[in-house]
């Protein structure tokens, strides 16, 4: 399951607007082998359990 899918599973009300540049959530991948991570989290609800802000 992708990082995006995990977030949507926790908060199915989120839309693509929330993940846009002007949105409340930013996902990023530096192509350095680490994989996708949460770069920005300004959503009104907490980061889903098991996930964290920033590069692992």
């Amino acid at each position: 399951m992708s990082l995006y899918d995990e977030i949507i599973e926790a908060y199915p009300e989120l839309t693509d607007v929330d993940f846009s540049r002007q949105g409340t959530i930013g996902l990023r991948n530096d192509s350095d082998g680490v994989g996708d991570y949460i770069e920005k989290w300004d959503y009104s609800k907490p980061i889903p359990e098991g996930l964290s802000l920033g590069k692992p």
Partner: protein
Amino acid sequence: MKWQAPAASGFVGCSLTKSANQSISNVTNTAITFDTELEDTDGFHSTVTNTSRITIPAGKAGFYLISGQINYASNATGVRHGNIYKNGSHLSVAWLSGAANGDWTGGSVSQIVELAVNDYVELFAYQNSGGNVNVNGGTTYGCAFQVQYLGA
């Protein structure tokens, strides 16, 4: 601001392409990697380490024209962006042509920026199709990234 006359020795900078497609996750800003150097006059790029980066070498601080071309695989849903990042932070963005089935979606982003020694720039892709979409590799229809030194 006055541009310096081009050096007598000619082009200074680097020009990169990628040989293989790269998968871009839905709504995830992703650094595009480059494994082919068409030109690299001063060791701006490595094909082994941090292959998404163009790093300014010693003695080459100054103004640069940065430009990137991104071609996405056929897919009709969502938008496509191309972004330039400097030292890991967003610098500029281009909204590329509309996604389409049966053809690739492509476009370019460019900016003139003053860069110091050890600054690095990257080309990031973003798409919101709802699933993974490839950016293209290959020298004919693949992605490209380049910097050209304009002067100190």
